[in-house]
């Protein structure tokens, strides 16, 4: 598997650290309530299909990335800088 780092280019997956669902970008407000925090921290879908995950190019530039990929075909559809995604959420 290879990931196209927007900064470094196409790199082997061994250079990347995997964190999990990109929902981690949407940190709730402190007073958002237990259900919201529970969903943020613990509740995850397990789709056969498209996922959006956070990876860090730890063995490279250090950038956190949002990787959109397919768990069935293993195709990587998009790689974006997490900082860009977060800015767009604001």
């Amino acid at each position: 598997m290879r990931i196209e780092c927007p900064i470094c280019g196409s790199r082997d997956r061994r250079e990347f650290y995997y964190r999990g669902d990109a929902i981690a970008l949407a940190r709730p407000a402190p007073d958002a309530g237990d259900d919201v925090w529970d969903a943020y921290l613990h509740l995850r879908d397990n789709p056969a299909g498209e996922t959006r995950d956070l990876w860090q190019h730890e063995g490279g530039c250090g950038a956190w990335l949002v990787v959109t990929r397919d768990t069935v075909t293993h195709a990587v559809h998009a790689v974006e800088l997490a900082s860009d995604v977060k800015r767009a959420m604001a």
Partner: protein
Amino acid sequence: MRIAGRGLVNRDKPVSFTFDGRRYDGFAGDTVASAMLANGQRLMGRSFKYHRPRGVLSAGSEEPNALVTTGVGPASEPNVRATMQEIYEGLAVRSQNAWPSLDLDLMAVNDLASPFLGAGFYYKTFMWPRKFWKHVYEPVIRRAAGLGRLSGGPNADAYEKAYAFCDLLVIGAGPAGLMAALVAARAGADVILAGEDALMGGRLNAENEHVDGQPGHAWAAGVVAELATMDNVRLMPRTTVTGVYDGGMFSALERVNQHRARRGEGAPLECFWRIAAKQSILAAGALERPVAFANNDRPGIMTAGAVRAYLTRWGVAPGKQVAVFGNNDDAHRTARDLAAAGVHVAAVIDSREGVSMEGADFPVLRGAVVCNASGRKELESVTIRTAGGEHKIQADCLAMSGGWNPSLHLTCHLGGRPTWEPDIHAFVPTPGAVPGMHVAGACNGTFSTHGCLAAGVAAAENALEALGRKPEPMDLPQADDAPYNLKPLWSVPGKGRAWLDFQNDVCVKDVQQAAAENFRSAEHMKRYTTQGMAPDQGKNSNVAALAVLADATGRGIAETGTTTFRPPYTPVAIAAMGAGGQGKGFAPERLTTSHAASLAMGAPMVEAGLWYRPSYFPRGQERNWRQSCDREVGFVRKTVGVCDVSTLGKIDIQGPDSAKLLDLVYTNKFSTLKVGKVRYGLMLREDGFVMDDGTCARLGETHYLMTTTTGAAGEVMRHLEFVTQCLHPEWQVHLTSVTEQWAQFAVAGPKSRELLNGLLEQPIDNDSFPFMACGSERLGGVAARLFRISFSGEHAYEITVPARYGAALFDLLVARAEALEGGAYGMEALNVLRLEKGHITHAEIDGRATAGDIGMERMVSDAKDCIGKTMSERPGLRDPERGQLVGLRPVGAVKQLTAGAFLFEAGAEARRENAQGYTTSVGFSPDIGTFIGLAFVMRGRQRHGEVMRMVDHLREIEAEVEICAPVFVDPEGGRARG
């Protein structure tokens, strides 16, 4: 028998080698198999289960029979295919799976026991009386079955792994692969051409035919020569592409030095490649399939294509009287090649009726089959069945062909299934099975040379289009375009065992028996009979076994299914895949700048992650580590000690929003920290548990230096990057790990300032440099940073210099400390010192502890949000019943405490349900004069003074302990401020 004037071996370079200690002569370019055949030696191995005598079946990597062991001692390598091993001067080859010798193998008694060892025998024998299995069958089977043996010694050879990148990976260097590589290379694409064989050209080196008016091998050599001159081409002979992975990744094994005496040259024996290719072309050729008939495993019976390869490639006649048996025109071709080379053709036996073979000066039997073979260690005769009955003819070699199976294995590695192609009675790759892979030539069911060349061009054009390149116009070379005429023949009916899977000793009747016992699916049949489960993964037998299964179950082959092909295509040594990962390659050493000095002082090292740190520094009469440790603790408590603390993570944080970042990641506030001051900080994970702790210094208005624990340095760095990039990309803050750049030493004890003032260019005092101060200093002309922080609780500093000065500074500090009746201290003393002060490490903050558990709930600021704060307020994390950090001291007869022991109420039974806590760290305190410990105990802070049972069930230690405050020395903390 070598045939004069034939073959591509170098007759000017004789090479000798040994097989089972006997010398054989061959030529450069020979394999073990070709050289043995040239010497008339047909017996090369014994079969896996029945120990049947076996010779070569093939001339390639699919070889099931001729498995040998090369080398001696730890450098020996079992299960080497004699058809792949090139000979070199001094090569030592041994037969395997035979005892006492290949020629006289007493284990061949298994062959007589074959009625008991058929399909499913492992499962069935378990059903028999237990003692029968245990005392009779199991010992015999375990000793008798199996392939080659490992030496038992460590592998003495060097291996490598490497990455390669290209626009186009061409897999296979036969006519299709060469043509594809040539077209793509001339169009400027970056091409890797990987061929399994030492000599590129594939079947062109084995067939007696012309391409572009030249002998096929000469045309191939010309193309290879052109490719070799091109900068955009990498030729990789002796390289088997073994696997296909996601995103255009391929694994490949290069046999770098398997073909020469390789000791002492430093080059690796094998290299395991990971190849990233934008496009790929599979041109892996095809494998000829045997025909199953009784005793078709006799040495001397081989595939027709192999016979032609030995003849044309190596100039070897595999026999003096060769019979040829087939269901397709390759049988005729083989007979013609043999006759042209002057080899006696005993007969051509063609299972088809009415085929013509003009001008043959040897008997041609049509509508006939070979139904049996005689001669135990060498073929002597074959029995031919015609409409008129059966008769024997003399033959010492039988060339057989049941047709060809495309080598489509790699197209199935991503889960694709092949498609049955009725026209050629074989499976072909399903289009699109691997993204970006184009399939060309025989592996796609195109068997003529002309067809392969044309397919190579077409595949290259498709790949170039995907790469955005244009092919140059090129004329297709003239080549043979004979049609592939075949009438299926999988097995010849009759009595006796007819082999399908030679490597795992699976016969037609085994598959039929599986079907009769209702193991009707291909996967069930495979597991029941073990067909296809040997190292060759059934390359020679899968399709024929399916055909027999289909026949036995009254289905077509297409509906019977296929087996699943998985990587690797051919066996790969774990040593190659894991190259570089042994010993220190698996866990590289991180060494501090004081490492050499510590070793010189006799310090044993302990591992902290990848770091090595001194455990203690033994002196003179000390007989054990405790004496050294007690003395070193005394240095810090009474005079001054020096300790290398460079392994702590150091993260340099700069930018206008640095303070905001720290306020978010630490539970306590850092925006209020004054420049020139240090503060202890606690970090939570977002789920509310403690992640790490450490100090953070404010070096300037927008400049902080964070320290982390040694073990959590990477995790904390990643966390800070996450917060800055994923949660607050609007903040202007930059993070740099500087752990390696600074050497840092603790100088601790009542005389620490006296020591430092002897070195600093500007001496300090308690007013200019109070507790928790930090600043830039100079010593010996070098800029340094000084922090007045204390892990030991004493008046202490940490001084840090650029790493290149670390070794010199350590020597200097230790010498000055010794002059003040102190000295270096190691990890043991460090641990005791922090235990005496109740300072936590990751023994306490093990991922399950909250700030409240460690008594730091007040450090979670009410005035601001922080990572983990919301979730730390969950009721379960605030439960007063949770374990709370306490100190322990022994109060009974047993004075020893152990870490990991459980705590029970006095008088309570030491059972799991009664456990009220557990110890995390213990050590002997010279100050207190006993062992002391830290523990988590339910409601522990209310239980100071209570006596509990400490029980270590594993070490069988029990002690009475008193719960106390987790600070044993200087509870007011006055010493650190003094």
